[in-house]
């Protein structure tokens, strides 16, 4: 009886562990295979015409070229700004440092549509900056014309990736031995020589890791380019969307997706290799950091911090401000009121407020799903010492290496026909969001699972705790923080997810980001005001989530 019970339990555990793999197989690998099939053999026979057009057509070559060009430029600019800031955070101590550091991660949780709307509100044609300049200098036209230019795309990318680079480089920097520099000084090195021969070479692993991560993020940039870049600019992501949604050329979209996937996998591979040597925690900085001394240092630190504050907070303030002042009526909450009404002739089929309900329901479902699957995955990866865990780990991270647009595209070509027809299922969006959010849950919970000494469980068992009691009384309290952080992350990711949702959301059940996107695309102050009001609401939701995450997080960004 004893042995039979044991095998039954084992079977149950095995089935539970298989759940995340089954989920990935159905909703990640199956759509991926469909992308391969549609791009290489749309009608069952090998047909490489899509790829030959990719290579021969100037248009696609330009798209590819632009994708790389803007990503390189964004990366270079981000690093150029982040490097001095990393220096300040690694070497200087100043009041409010840790608060500023945690606030700097805020963009990480902000949805792309919100960021795009915020930058439009700040430096767009009718943005706050232009209004101020017009008012100050009594100008006729808006002096800053950035809408639909590369410039505004780059600025938004810097906003997004600045803190990522700051954390990676600054954290690594803080762990470098300052005596290395002192030794070089004693040997006669001066200012620029210190940078060229000591600092930059010593930092190079962190700089490379940060550069590749920023490159990955900007290479797959979708919402920012689609909304801020207008029709003139298309990255691969935007082109996939155009081909699939506007031109209905699925084969072309699939071919582009394949290029995208291949490129991303290579980049992720390089990144994980580099990351091993460069992850560090910025909190170690306190040991060698000191207050700035003298006018020069104080000015430098002050300038960097002012730049950070302007970069990170003026767009958000501008968004709130503009959501209350669009149109000619002065200060008004009219657009928030409009959200609950179904405007006739609107692009939407329902009052925008319904989208909030949709988004919350979807986010809760995605959170539950990704917490359940992520928890199981973390245990599979954290407790198995076998080789299996070694190759399973990257498998579970694959969805992170796949852009949201590719995921969404894969869904519409794979899951809207038998054998797995989910086109009308309300679960389609939560499933897609779960794919995107699950890696975050795994990364939040895994370190906690790994840190539980097996002896703790053994001690509880010897004292009479059954296996379930061990989990409930020992494991659960110890992983609770990681689990909460992961859940809030999942919730935030789902609330803000744009790329995949744009493909698979049904017209009558849009999410908040989709409503914002549609409203931004329409003329008129009423539509624009509502878009900003909606963005403000979403930003506040994500801001609250961010505060929760920061309160519960015990580790730095090391795992990302």
């Amino acid at each position, binding site marked *: 009886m*004893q042995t039979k019970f044991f095998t039954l339990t084992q079977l149950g555990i095995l089935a539970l562990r298989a759940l995340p793999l089954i989920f990935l197989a159905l909703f990640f690998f199956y759509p991926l295979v469909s992308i391969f099939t549609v791009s290489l053999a749309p009608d069952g026979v090998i047909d490489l015409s899509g790829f030959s057009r990719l290579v021969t057509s100037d248009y696609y070559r330009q798209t590819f070229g632009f994708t790389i060009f803007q990503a390189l430029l964004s990366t270079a600019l981000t690093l150029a700004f982040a490097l001095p800031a990393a220096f300040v955070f690694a070497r200087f101590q100043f009041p409010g440092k840790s608060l500023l550091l945690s606030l700097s991660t805020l963009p990480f949780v902000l949805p792309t549509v919100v960021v795009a709307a915020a930058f439009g509100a700040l430096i767009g044609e009718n943005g706050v900056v232009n209004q101020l300049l017009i008012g100050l200098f009594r100008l006729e036209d808006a002096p800053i014309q950035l809408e639909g230019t590369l410039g505004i795309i780059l600025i938004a990318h810097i906003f997004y990736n600045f803190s990522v680079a700051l954390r990676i480089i600054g954290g690594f920097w803080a762990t470098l031995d300052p005596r290395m520099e002192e030794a070089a000084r004693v040997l006669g090195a001066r200012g620029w020589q210190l940078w060229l021969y000591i600092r930059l070479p010593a930092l190079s692993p962190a700089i490379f890791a940060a550069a590749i991560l920023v490159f990955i993020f900007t290479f797959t940039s979708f919402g920012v380019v689609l909304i801020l870049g207008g029709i003139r600019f298309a990255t691969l992501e935007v082109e996939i969307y155009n081909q699939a949604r506007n031109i209905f050329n699925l084969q072309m979209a699939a071919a582009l997706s394949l290029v995208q996937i291949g490129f991303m996998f290579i980049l992720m591979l390089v990144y994980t290799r580099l990351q091993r040597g460069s992850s560090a925690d910025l909190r170690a900085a306190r040991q060698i950091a000191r207050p700035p001394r003298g006018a020069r240092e104080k000015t430098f630190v002050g300038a960097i911090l002012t730049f950070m504050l302007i970069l990170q907070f003026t767009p958000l303030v501008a968004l709130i401000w503009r959501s209350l002042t669009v149109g000619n009526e002065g200060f008004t909450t009219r657009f928030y009121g409009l959200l609950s009404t179904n405007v006739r002739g609107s692009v939407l089929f329902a009052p925008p407020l319904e989208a909030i309900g949709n988004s919350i329901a979807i986010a809760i479902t995605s959170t539950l799903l990704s917490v359940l699957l992520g928890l199981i995955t973390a245990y599979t990866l954290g407790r198995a010492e076998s080789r299996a865990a070694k190759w399973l780990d990257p498998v579970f991270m694959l969805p992170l290496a796949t852009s949201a647009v590719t995921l969404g595209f894969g869904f519409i070509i794979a899951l809207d026909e038998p054998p797995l027809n989910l086109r009308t299922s309300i679960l389609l969006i939560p499933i897609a969001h779960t794919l995107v959010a699950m890696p975050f849950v795994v990364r939040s919970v895994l370190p906690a699972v790994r840190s539980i*000494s097996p*002896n*703790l469980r*053994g*001690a*509880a*068992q*010897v*004292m*009479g*705790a*059954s*296996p379930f*009691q061990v989990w409930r*009384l*020992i494991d659960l*309290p*110890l992983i609770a923080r990681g689990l909460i952080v992961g859940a809030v992350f999942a919730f935030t990711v789902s609330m803000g997810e744009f790329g995949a949702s744009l493909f698979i959301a049904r017209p009558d059940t849009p999410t908040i980001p989709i409503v914002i996107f549609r409203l931004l695309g329409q003329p008129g102050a009423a539509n624009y005001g509502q878009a900003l009001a909606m963005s403000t609401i979403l930003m506040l939701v994500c801001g609250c989530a961010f505060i929760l995450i920061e309160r519960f997080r015990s580790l730095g960004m090391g795992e990302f």
Partner: protein
Amino acid sequence: MLLLQNIVRSFDDKRVLRGIDLEVGTGEIVCLLGPSGCGKTTALRIVAGLETADSGNVLLDGTSIMAIPVHEREFGLMFQEFALFPHMDVARNITFGLRMAHTTHAAQEMRLHEVLELVGLQGFERRDIAQLSGGEKQRVALARSLASHPRLLMLDEPLGSLDAALRERLVGDLRTIIKKAGLTALYVTHDQREAFAIADRIAVMNAGKIEQIATPPALYHHPGTEFVARFLGFSNVIDAAHEPVLSETKSGAKTLLLHPDGLHIGGEHDTHVRSGVITESIFSGDSYRVTVEIAPGYSVTFNPRSRDHDDLSIGQSIWVKIDLDYVLPLNG
């Protein structure tokens, strides 16, 4: 009474335990002593039920406990790193086992104060684990493993993570407390001094086998095998070919231990003396530690008292007197 019968265990084709037989009498403290990797911790974990044996049997008071899952064995176990639950305070750590057994709240409180008094930590109930010093953690861990009146107390290198001075102080207390509680205990360590101080009997383990079981004095004075002799730090293990006469008196043993306690500096006319040259001499307060080469490949080390000898320097020729009672035949 705890009885281990022919316990065998392999990990990935590596035989970690190769037939362990051991008896621990009721109220007795038996120590498994051996170098790391000898299988002592695996043996303990098999008794606890945290590990399974490939074959063999474990009996407690005559009944096999092999089929009883860990959490129903009602044992106490103290780990090397203590394994205190970081998310519970001292009181909740100690009463964990009582709560698992659904003991009444009043009984829990009473027992909590009993064991806290036993280990000398009255007033520590609400302390956080992180606030405790190493010695305090050790006491809490001991109190926790005693609290549920375990049928068997197991201790896995319970002092291993403490510094030497603290270890020396606590090892005596540990024995007193276990004896006061009247518990049967199985104690695992790699430190012979700890084993000497705590155990009623010591089982020395080597590569998955028990080499010798004896009381601490018997083990010290009569190590039975070459491994035990060397593990206890005796270096005078010599090939009988160097001492055919001595070998004959020990029924022709192939290997002999010249116990350092039986070696003294003598004179030319004493019985059983060997002449030799000092090759190493270290002064250490009350005694010297000298190594004397008697013949090529035949050296002995022993500890003459320093007050009896003014000067023992390298290169000096001396007579080494051998006490026959301390010439021990060694097996394998």
